[in-house]
């Protein structure tokens, strides 16, 4: 425990750190964050084994994704923060161009074009923006004073708006909102006035009606209506929510035991290994398991904020703040939607839900965090 406390302190206490963990520092690894992530991903694999219907193949594949993601994280952590700062506008431009490309050449399903297909390799350009967006806004603001002046705020909003609108056109409301949020979080961290925030909040409330009328698609409206009254469509859209609430509630405090969740093992729970995996966890491990997961997430988020506070540059602070907040948004939205608090949007439970893309993006983000935590400025070499 003593070691742990000391390690938690390391970004700020370089003398202590250089003595205790020189290797970690040389490798640009934030040991507490890494340990938390390892515990989280291992726990995620345990839950996934049960949620996938006890298919070892699913666990192995997810494990491979994790290995890839840890590799990406490691690489991301090695890159100098200044390089991120320099490259971000070019990546932003590339991302925007690809998003425009999606609109013209994109492929997709269910009435949405989200992928670009390059030589048989399909990927979502919006995924790039998840990291590039905070980097770019932070790049723009880093050369200016904080809190930013009004015209710079407007410029930032434009930077946020362009890719967000492009993604909204795909249409992919959930991702558009997440990416917009990641840019806005940078503004928030940069200390824009509360009047802007409150004003934006009021504007959002005021626009609820026109958005409902003119922007939301029918299926999106249906999701919100289903949230308000899942019983209205028991076997259709309400099914998922009713079954996931049943799974969570029937877990109780102790849970039914690993692999013993009836809702998940007997296929009552849809998407049990992807977006709804928290319901499996809640059913089999009970509220205890949920608390354990929440504690892990909270520690990761707190570690993220710790890095914000001890970062050496405004750029690093803003990026780290945005990444941490965005990570938390994933947690909140996913856990909220599965528990019937929020409408069902396609947001995975970070690092637990099965899937490759989101894991790689998230871990790249953590690599960025580590790069910030172990950055050059003021660091002993």
């Amino acid at each position: 425990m003593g070691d742990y406390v000391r390690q938690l302190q390391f970004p700020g206490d370089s003398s202590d750190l250089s003595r205790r963990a020189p290797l970690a520092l040389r490798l640009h690894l934030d040991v507490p964050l890494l340990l938390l992530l390892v515990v989280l991903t291992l726990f995620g694999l345990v839950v996934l084994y049960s949620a996938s219907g006890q298919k070892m193949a699913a666990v192995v594949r997810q494990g491979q994704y994790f290995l890839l993601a840890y590799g990406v994280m490691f690489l991301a952590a090695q890159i100098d923060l200044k390089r991120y700062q320099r490259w971000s506008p070019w990546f932003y431009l590339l991302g925007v161009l690809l998003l425009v490309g999606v609109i013209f050449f994109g492929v997709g399903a269910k009435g949405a074009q989200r992928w670009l297909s390059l030589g048989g390799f399909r990927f979502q350009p919006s995924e790039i923006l998840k990291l590039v967006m905070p980097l770019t806004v932070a790049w723009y603001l880093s050369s200016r004073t904080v809190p930013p002046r009004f015209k710079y705020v407007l410029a930032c909003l434009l930077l946020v708006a362009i890719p967000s609108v492009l993604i909204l056109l795909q249409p992919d409301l959930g991702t558009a909102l997440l990416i917009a949020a990641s840019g806005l979080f940078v503004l928030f961290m940069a200390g824009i006035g509360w009047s802007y925030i409150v004003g934006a909040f009021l504007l959002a409330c005021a626009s609820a009606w026109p958005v409902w009328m003119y922007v939301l698609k029918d299926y999106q409206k249906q999701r919100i209506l289903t949230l308000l009254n899942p019983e209205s469509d028991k076997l259709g859209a309400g099914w998922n929510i009713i079954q996931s609430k049943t799974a969570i509630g029937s877990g109780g405090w102790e849970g039914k035991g690993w692999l013993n969740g009836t809702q998940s093992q007997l296929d009552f729970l849809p998407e049990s290994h992807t977006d709804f995996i928290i319901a499996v966890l809640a059913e089999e491990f009970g509220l205890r398991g949920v608390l354990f997961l929440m504690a892990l997430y909270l520690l990761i988020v707190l570690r993220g904020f710790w890095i914000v506070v001890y970062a050496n540059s405004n750029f690093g602070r803003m990026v780290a703040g945005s990444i941490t907040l965005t990570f938390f948004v994933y947690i909140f939205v996913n856990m909220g939607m599965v528990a019937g608090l929020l409408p069902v949007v396609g947001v995975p439970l970070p690092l637990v839900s099965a899937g490759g893309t989101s894991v790689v993006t998230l871990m790249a983000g953590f690599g960025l965090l580590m790069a910030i935590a172990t950055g050059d400025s003021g660091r002993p070499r």
Partner: protein
Amino acid sequence: MPQHIPLKDPGGEARIFIARTLFSVLLVLALLGVILARYHDLQINDYEIYRTQSDRNRVQLQPLPPKRGLIYDRNGVLLADNRPSHILSIVRERVEDMDATLADLQQLLPISESDLENFQQKLQRRRPYEAVPLRFRLTEEERALLAVNRHRMPGVTVDAQLVRHYPHGALFSHAVGYVGRINEREAQSLDERDYRGTFHVGKVGVEKFYEDLLHGEVGYQNVETNAHGRVLRVLERFDPVPGADITLHLDFQLQQTALAALGEQRGAVVAIDPLNGGVLALVSTPGFDTNLFVNGISSADYKALRDSPDVPLFNRAIQGQYPPGSTVKPMMAMAGLQAGLVTPESTVADPGWYSLPGDSRRYRDWILKIRGTGHAPRVDMHMAVAESCDVYFYDLARRLTIDRMHDYLSGYGLGTRTGVDTTNERPGVLPSTRWKRDTMNQPWYPGETLSAGIGQGYMLATPMQLAAATTVLATRGQSRTPRLLRSVAGQTQPNEARETITAPPAYWDAVHDSMRAVVHSARGTARKIGEDIRYQMASKTGTSQVIGIAQNAIYVEAEVAERHRNHGLFIAFAPYESPTIAVAVIVENGGGASAASPIARAVLDAWLVEEAALDSEATAGALADG
């Protein structure tokens, strides 16, 4: 704190970030608190609700239908057993589009209108997630087709269930009856709980009469199913109690003999063991294959059976009401003796006809048109029975009067249902002045008494009633309700006798002796069947005039003549000294008793001669019962 801050107001900027970070932490904690509150609410406060819901999701209570009791003949020959049959059922809740699924299924296998109708009806009264049967008796090929297509038809299941089967087809159609699919009306009267999972119920005959015995008690099992309704494991199980196996008094050999003897003729044979009332044979021809009815008869098959002029669905043995004709004469003679109107020695003048005092109308004896004269100048009781003299009984009937005749003959069970343990029995008619006033609102005419005296006119009896009456004659006044049921699960069912006729032995001796002469005398009306006979029987022939059978009022032009011929009847018990079998035979439009008597002889031979060795044990048992 960081040592190098490349910004103009490092302290101020750092404060901003720290402030925003603190705010973020508080926001995160608050939002996590909201989430936690929600999970706490679901998992702790509403735990019971969701636990129950989850159990209801996965656990289903499935009824386990009991195995229907088997039916055996007296020697252990299986008359009704159960065979596995594959049933196609649908669970409404799991079907997305019922119409499309039904259309799909109809592409794969034939589903009749009545199947669909039945299905739609049952769909209305099922419990949630209960499988409703659509098609029974799937063939191997149909099952294979369904198995291949199952994946695209959620909610469609194929189960094996034991279904009634009658191994002997038409042989026992009227004796045993049959089960059929529970219809709407039956569903309302049957106990819903007892018949969960059971699709069949006794419709007719023993199958219906002993439904409660044969059905058994339903069992239940709690099964865990997945979201697709597939049973994964059984959590707990309460076994059903199978229906009782029952043994009937019926004798397979005797039944077969009677059916063969009747051949193509329409008629009925009822044989009863006089010592215990056990029904040894119950045949009505033509019969039908009862298996047709088990899983829903096709409308073409049903139409053929219903519209056949031979009315095979009509159970002549218990529903056919025929004028008993001369078969009542032994009972009339007994009544005359009891009433003191005749003695064995007293005689009546027989010119071949009879007329009422002050009435010129002549009531002819049947022999008049054959011989042009009566049986003899004077006829005594013995001759009157042996040669079936009408004049003797016209005179007796007149003196006895109709109401006393009614009282004496009712001791033989005529005019009331015998109470045999099967369904749809009819009571026949034993007329009286009161009966005629009540049913026809008309006075009784003296001439009608004479017709009644020879078993014609209003008098009607079923073959079952005649056989039962013959047992009363055989046992000298002991009456037993005829019984098909011999034992239940090995327990023999008692059948107590009531003495319905009390008379001096000499009277019985005289009547029995006259009945013996019917076959065993040179002038007996059935002397032809007495050739090479190895036992003695007491019997009586009968011929009844056809006025028209209400039950089969379908007349085809060419068949009118045939259908107007007299019915032949014959009753007998044997062996003469200690009777072990009483039999009544009727051959519709057989012309006369000569059509019926050889059939009775065949049945008696089968019982007394061919089976004597085999069945001595059973008879000893039957004697013990008596």
